[in-house]
């Protein structure tokens, strides 16, 4: 992306969000690995430690489970911690505290406690990093009642949804993707929104095809839609933004209109977010409105490789999505591996 004047990148926008939170909400603090490092979390938290002090921007030992539990404990006691995991893969060591603790404490204790903890993890893949440094797994967390899951695809959302996540009284998993850090846009003034009111958004409209994605996949869908438009195919593009709890209304009304659905997700296929999108509309719509069978574009059923040629074929691309879109509108009944 070219950098136009007065625009802000995705990573810098996240930093703006943190700056706003730390400056305006004394109960907010951040804790996680790499917060005192110049590179660990990209440019998304640069110098926050010197700006707000190392008591509120806390770097930690290599103890994902313990640090996440500690953040939850502080959240139960009046604070709004953001626990940062520089990679989703590392966060998996903290699954118990996220899924069996944070997501359940409110209901388990009869609604008497809130756990306003935000777990921020970064999807950091590609660059020949391989199988253990590439997972996104949003589908896992979108499966858990009690846990709100947020995935911004634009700098503005990266900033404002971070703020909404941290100000929410519910536990929130906020996932940002390093592949979006290059995106730039002019940011509107900050608005503190109630996350409970946020949901999927229509970012482009057209009668021929509905494309749904989140985070980097939403970005790919937007790019693909532009390319398809050049081919005379106009698409509705829906950016999920909030994956759980999912409000499918917009997707349903869109597919009711287009009769065609392409669900794109940068996670695996089986029991994935793309499956949820398809199942949601399949249940909600009279099958006769469908002009073609819906399709998924996801990762292949394999761990991430390192070797460059394999890596290039592993991740969904704009080209591939465009192909799938054309095929769908052509409505050939093709199957892909």
């Amino acid at each position: 992306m070219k950098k136009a004047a007065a625009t802000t990148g995705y990573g810098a926008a996240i930093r703006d969000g943190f700056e706003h939170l730390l400056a305006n909400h004394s109960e907010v603090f951040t804790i996680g690995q790499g917060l005192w490092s110049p590179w660990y979390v990209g440019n998304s938290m640069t110098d926050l430690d010197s700006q707000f002090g190392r008591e509120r921007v806390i770097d930690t030992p290599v103890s994902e489970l313990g640090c996440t539990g500690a953040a939850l404990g502080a959240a139960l006691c009046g604070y709004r911690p953001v626990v940062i995991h520089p990679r989703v893969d590392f966060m998996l060591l903290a699954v118990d505290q996220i899924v069996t603790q944070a997501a359940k404490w409110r209901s388990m204790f009869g609604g008497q406690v809130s756990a306003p903890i935000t777990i921020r993890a970064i999807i950091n893949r590609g660059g020949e990093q391989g199988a253990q440094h590439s997972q996104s797994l949003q589908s896992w967390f979108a499966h858990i009642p009690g846990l709100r899951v947020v995935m911004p695809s634009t700098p503005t959302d990266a900033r404002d949804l971070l703020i909404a996540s941290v100000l929410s009284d519910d536990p929130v998993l906020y996932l940002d993707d390093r592949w979006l850090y290059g995106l730039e846009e002019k940011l509107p003034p900050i608005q503190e929104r109630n996350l409970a009111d946020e949901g999927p958004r229509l970012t482009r409209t057209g009668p021929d095809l509905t494309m749904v994605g989140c985070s980097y996949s939403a970005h790919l869908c937007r790019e693909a839609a532009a390319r398809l438009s050049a081919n005379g195919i106009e698409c509705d593009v829906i950016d999920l933004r909030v994956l759980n709890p999912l409000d499918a209304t917009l997707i349903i009304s869109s597919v009711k209109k287009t009769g065609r659905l392409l669900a794109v997700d940068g996670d695996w296929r089986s029991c994935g977010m793309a499956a949820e999108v398809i199942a949601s509309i399949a249940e909600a719509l009279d099958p006769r409105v469908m002009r073609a069978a819906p399709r998924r574009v996801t990762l292949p059923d394999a761990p991430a490789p390192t070797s460059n040629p394999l890596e290039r074929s592993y991740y969904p691309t704009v080209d591939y999505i465009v192909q799938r879109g054309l095929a769908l509108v052509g409505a050939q009944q093709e199957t892909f591996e």
Partner: protein
Amino acid sequence: MASLDALIQRNAGSLGTLADAEHYHEPVMIDADDTEALLAGLQRMILIRVVEEKIGDMVSQGVVKCPCHLAIGQEAPAVGVASYVRQGDRVFGAHRSHSHFLALGGSPHGLLAEVQGKDTGVSRGMGGSMHLIDIPNGLYGTVPIVGATIPIAVGAGLAAKMDGNGAMAVSFFGDGATEEGVFHESMNLAALMKIPVLFVCENNFFSSHLHIALRQPDASVCRYAEAHRIEWARADGNDLAAVRAVTREAVAAIRAGDGPRFLELVTYRWRGHVGHREDEDVGVKRKDDLAVWKLRDPISRLAVALEDIGALNRQQLKQFWTEAHVVVEEAWATATHDGYPPAKALLSRVYSGTMANKQ
């Protein structure tokens, strides 16, 4: 199983006689402690004993259906530590926490309603025996995932440190929990950040059916505090005065800003790991040991000591027990007539949907 006996002996390690059921049957030494506090503590231990026995009976009758882990025989650690918990402190427990709840002043009715799944329960019928909360009394949560509340307590301590009001967090857990990696991560974090948290390990030698000799190379867990550079103390967990003494010192240091402290309180449970039976699902040797361990009863040992100095007489003691029974029976009766949570509670308590007020 002579070989296991031998193993257990070898394994006793630094616990010495504390690991031997034959010792500490005599009345506890109380001259160094405050008589009023000990009398109050005795009453509280009796209340816990009576509540637990009531729950045990109701479990055996099939009236209480949720899994209940009874703390009969382990009343002293809860009561001794609780006597130094003050307004603003935050306490966390685990699966065997009826004692912690009651020691902190929790209402017997709230507990007895909760184990029946009533809307009037302390967790509004959503948690049962294994998920208790009582924020007004400082109990911030007990959960059955072993070790899970240890880092949470460290986080509560971090919050207290940030608040800078001299409050502390308390984490109650068992010897089995020290086998979870998160216990070590939490200890390191607390030591590194000098977090005001009191780690209290109730070492009762068992993790469900397994004796600690079959789970760890040494029966004493203070070695972990040593490794994480956290000052520790060990005491007879069936001696209220001893528990109060080590707690007093640890809490003073914590409130003075010295960082975390660790207590190992050696005790024994009189019932099976879960449920009302005495010898259910227990490790070998336990059957024979239990009778001897019962002679290390925290209640009678304290009662006799108080009688010996004339601070208590048979009459009053009998009175304590009767009062406890009255309270418990009344609470139980009320709870049985209370209602269940409404159907909508299932979905209405999952999310708050609210957000922070602007500042």
